Each structure stands twice: as C-alpha cells, then as structure tokens.
C-alpha cells in the first residue's frame, strides 16, 4: 500500500456517491466508490448491466443527466504536479477540462457524431474549442492519429458520419478522443455493437495506442476478455459498489469475491479443459432499496448472518488485492467453487 501511494496517480476517487431521482425514490447507482488510477495504468471496471459502471464514468467527467447528482465524494485529478477536485469545477472550467485533459469515448459510437457535419468539421471544431487556430497544423496531427487507428484521412475526413461503417466510426471516435493527447481517457464499452471481426481490429488498435501513447485509461466493459487484454487492474462493480480490485491475473485466477468468481465462470474459454458455463443465479438487486449488509448476499452461496447484517468494506486482503467480502478467505481457499455448486444443487 505504501508503495502505491508513492507512485504518481492520475485520478483518485474517494467515497463517491451518485443517485438518480426516480418516481419511486432515489436510485443509488454509485455507492461510496473509492479507487486510485495510477499514471499510465489501465483500470477496467466490469460488472453486469445496471451495476453503475456507466453512471460512474459519466460522473467522473460530470456529464450526468439532470435527474442524477453527485451526493458526496471527491474526484481528484492530478496532472503535471497540479491537482484539483473535478466535483468542484465550474461549467466553464469543465468545458476546458473535458477532452483536453479527460476524453470520454462513449459506447454506441454509431451515433456519437453530428449527422449533418463532415468528420473534418467535427475534428476542427473540437480542436478550436480547445484553442487550436491553425488548420494546417491540426490537419497534420489528425493524419498522425488516423495512422494510429488505421484510417485513411483523405477519405474519412471528407465523409459524413453515415457514410462510414460502424467499426470505422468507432475508430474515428477513438482518433478524436486522442486528438488533444489527453492524459486520461475513459472508454465505455468500446466494442459493444460491433461484429466480432471489427471488435478484434478495434481491440488491436487500442492495444497499439496504449503502448505508443502514455495515457491513463479507464475501461468500462461487461466484456471480460476485452478487460483481460487491455487492463492492468480489474475493478468489479456490483450494485453500485466496488467489490474487488485486483491485477488482471489475480482477478481471473485468484478471485477473492464470490461475484467476480461467478462472472469469470460465466465466460467460455477457448483453450484449456472444457468447463460447464455457469451463470450467477438470481438478478441484480433493486438499487432503490438495496439489500442490507452485503448487497450480494441474496445470490451468494457463502452468505452468513454476518453478511446479511453488516456491510463489508473494501480491505486489502492480499498485497495489491482489495476485496469487500466477509468470507474472502473461504473463496480463496476453494477458488469460488461454491458458485458452481449452487447451481447444481
């Protein structure tokens, strides 16, 4: 832990809590989430749909819909010795901060561009909004980023968004995201809605970019294989809380939270012995009134009375491996095997 605090960080989130105002009451979408993103690191957030991943991403860049609000917490951004809390930024400061410092590449790039403007105009207006005045200079930079994402600048820049394929649009959006060389990038489901071959090429592009440019990356995905390929560490989210943060290797081969163990068992493997795929029984909890104690206890084979009454906090169970579970040692001991037995029983 001492080692971790010494390395420079890009983003430090402390006790972040985000709620949506709904008819039935408050939807607690993100509950007391804390994590640190090291400089140059890739941190992947995984979890089922509706676990609060995207809400977390939107709140980091303060783009929550008007029905949602950050209730408490800090989002400390650190770059070149300067640090400030994103939560306290004014609209004007936010506008300058977004994209130049922190680019968010959204899921559904299919609809990420203004349909009536040419791609070049959208690059130009983005650069101009952040102080670029020289078109020729920008053109050179755009061509450079286009080479990185394997796009033909002459053809693509002249095109309207609808003239590009889904995979191309995704790569154009990635190029646009990296245009200003932001120190921090957030990728929200970058391969969803793409066919399998296109996914492959986008993943390759992303991996190349990561090795060539030094940005910190937050990856939000329900695609575990994507997380495994790109991430350094994996954070598992369940019902708006972080339940485990571990290195990719630990998360996949030594999960300490039964939910992470369950998620990994739900994914088929190509190599190795044939295993039965197991889905996690039950469904994600209601975020308006989440279960008492550990939110996962109704679906958890390890659950005891302690889990039903007391909420576990995120503790460093093993070196650089944080988990929020009362029984992580049991999970570690049997490798989460009970997640499988539960279904068979």
């Amino acid at each position, binding site marked *: 832990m001492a080692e971790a605090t010494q390395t420079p960080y890009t983003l430090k989130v402390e006790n972040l809590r985000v709620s949506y105002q709904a008819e039935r009451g408050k939807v607690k979408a993100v509950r007391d989430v804390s994590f640190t993103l090291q400089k140059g690191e890739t941190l992947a957030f995984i979890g089922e749909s509706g676990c609060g991943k995207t809400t977390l991403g939107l709140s980091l860049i303060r*783009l929550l819909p008007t029905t949602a609000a950050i209730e408490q917490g800090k989002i400390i951004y650190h770059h070149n010795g300067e640090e400030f809390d994103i939560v306290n930024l004014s609209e004007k400061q936010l506008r300058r901060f977004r994209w130049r410092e922190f680019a968010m590449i959204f899921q559904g790039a299919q*609809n990420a561009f*203004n*349909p*009536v403007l*040419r791609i070049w105009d959208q690059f130009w207006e983005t650069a101009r909004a952040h102080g670029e005045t020289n078109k020729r200079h920008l053109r050179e930079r755009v061509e450079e980023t286009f080479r990185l994402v394997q796009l033909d600048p002459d053809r693509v820049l002249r095109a309207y968004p*609808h003239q590009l394929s889904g995979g191309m649009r995704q790569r154009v959006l990635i190029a646009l995201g990296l245009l200003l060389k932001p120190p921090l990038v957030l990728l929200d489901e970058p391969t969803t809605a793409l066919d399998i071959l296109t996914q492959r090429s986008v993943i390759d592009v992303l991996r190349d970019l990561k090795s060539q440019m030094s940005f910190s990356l937050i990856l939000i995905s329900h695609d575990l294989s994507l997380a495994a390929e790109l991430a350094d560490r994996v954070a598992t989210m369940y019902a708006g809380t972080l339940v485990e943060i571990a290195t990719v290797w630990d998360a996949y081969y030594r999960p300490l939270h039964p939910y992470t163990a369950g998620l990994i068992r739900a994914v088929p493997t190509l190599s190795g012995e044939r295993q039965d795929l197991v889905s996690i029984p039950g469904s994600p909890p209601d975020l308006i009134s989440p279960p008492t104690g550990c939110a996962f206890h109704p679906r958890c084979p390890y659950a005891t009375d302690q889990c039903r009454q007391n909420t576990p906090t995120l503790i460093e169970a093993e070196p650089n491996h944080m988990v929020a579970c009362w029984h992580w040692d049991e999970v570690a001991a049997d490798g989460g095997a009970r997640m499988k037995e539960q279904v068979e029983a």
Partner: protein
Amino acid sequence: MSTVQPAQEEAPQKTSSWLQRIWRNYMLRRVAAALFKIWIVITLTFFIVRLMPTNPIDAYVNELMDQYGFSYEEAKDQAAALFNIDLDSSLWDQYVQYMANLLHGDLGTSYRSKGTPVIKMIAKFLPWTLFSVGVSLLISFTLGILLGMIMAYRRESLLDHTLSALASIFSAIPNYLVGMMILVFLGVQWKIFPITKMRGSMSPGMKPAFTWAFIKDIFYHALLPILTYVLTTIGTWMLAMKSSTISTLGEDYITVAKARGLPERRIVTAYVGRNASLPLFTQLAISIGFIVGGSALIEFIFVYQGVGQLLLSSINTRDYPVMQGVFLVITIAVILANFLADFVYGWLDPRIRI
C-alpha cells in the same frame, strides 16, 4: 465481327424511348411528375367549378336583381349583352379548348371584368399574397423555432407551460376567427389600429418604388393579415420544434459534444438547433400551399387585395376562368414549394442527399 458487336449492344439503348430516359434522370422525373400533378388538378378544378350550383349568368342576373332592383327581364337582357360566351358547346369541347389555350400560356379572360386576361388579374393580386404570406411564414417559422427550443430547454417550467397553452389555443382557432377578433377588438372596440386606413394593400396614390416610404406603407397595410397568419401558425411550429428538440437533446451526439468540451453556443446552434429543425422544413413546404389557399377569408376580412380576395369574388360571380386561374396558381405554388423543400432538405441533411 468485333466491329459489329458494339453496334448491336448500342441498339437497344437507341431504341429506348424518351419516356425511359426521363425516368432515369431524377430531375426530369420530378419535373414530369409535377406536370402530371398540375394537369390532374387543372382537370379536376375545371369540372368541379362547373359542377357548382348556378352559372355565371344566373349569378349576374341575381346580383342585378338584388342589388340594383332590375326586373328579371331587364337583368337577363343586360346579362346577355355582357356575356357572349358560347355555353352551347359541350363541356368536353370547352375542356379541350381550355387545355389548348393553357398550353399556349393563355388562361382565358374574365367573364365579369369583360376582356381582362386572367393572367393580368393574377399578376396584379398575387404579389400581395406572396408578400404577406411569405413574410408571415418567415416570422412564424423562425420565431416558432426559437420559442420551441426555449420551451424544450426550459421544459416543465412556468414559461414552457404558458407558451404551450398559448400555442395550443392559437393553433386550434381557425384563422378567420382570429382575424375577426383582431378586427372587432383591436380595430373597432379598443381602436388600437385605424382599420379603415389600413385597408387595401397600399395607400391610395402610393407608387411602387424601392423607397423607405413605400416599404413602410406596404408593411403597414399588410400588418393585420400578417399578425393573423403568424398568430394562427406559430403554435404548430413551436410545439413541433419543442418535441423535436427534446428528442434531439437525448441523442448520443449531444452528450459527446459536451464531453468534447464544445462551447454551449455551438452545441445549441449546430448540434441541437440544426438537427431538431430538420423535420420542420418538410412541414414548411406543405404549409406554404395551405396558407396561400387559406388567405381568402383573411384578405376578405381585412380588405387586402390579394389573390385570396380575387378567388372569393370570382367564386361569388362564378367567374370560371378566374377561379381556375387562381387554383392553378395555388397548385403550382404547392408543387414548387415541395420541390424547393426537397432541395433545402437535401442541402441541410446530408443523409438524404441524392
């Protein structure tokens, strides 16, 4: 052999009829379709106009008897002297004659204003309608779009609720009722507008010229019709723009534009405004036709010398050639407006560009 083969391949192209060639060219196809539509409308109006009860002569005879106290015999003689039209020729012959004249650009002459070519009458009245209707449409469309966007941005606020209610009320009242209310309340009861001075399309003795005095004068005279058109059409634009803006605001590219740090002004205009107003341009074309057709009662109420008033008086006197001429102009206006809308739309939205 090799020299013969290309010739054989060319042969079917040469024999392809001019109809096929028109079909292949998008522009020509549109023009052909437009001409076809105009012909249909001309034919329909030709017969429908003649299906109306009473004919021009009876209408004239009745008018003379009612207004000037002529006896039936006197009125009939008077009418016979005025109308030397051959009503004996069959309807079919009249139709063929009319179409033949039309092909030469001849719209015929008025029955009532003896010998005045219809084209001259339309040329005299149409500019005023185009002017008043065009200005109102411009005001109502731009203002409606602005207000609709404001309503969408401030939705569920007091401003939104008030404007929505007003928009619904005004778009629900027929324009002639609004016109009459303006006339009665603003003109007669409260005397805000000197309606007798505002009559006509310009002040007597005013010479059309590109001078400030003339422009001020024609706007002064068109003020009340314009006010009526704007009041009765703006509500539709406001409500349409409001719902269109709300759905545009939910689009991904708006969120992405914010994430890109674009200035708010840029997002409002180039992102929200431009995309949200796209569907309204199609409606704009349709409404041009409706408003020209609907100008008759308004121009009658405010004694404005436009084509609508010409239509109304020609209906009263059963002046067939004038009625047909006006309908022809309205048809052409609608078709041209649609034409224009397609081009404007294609220019605004690259996705449907041909």
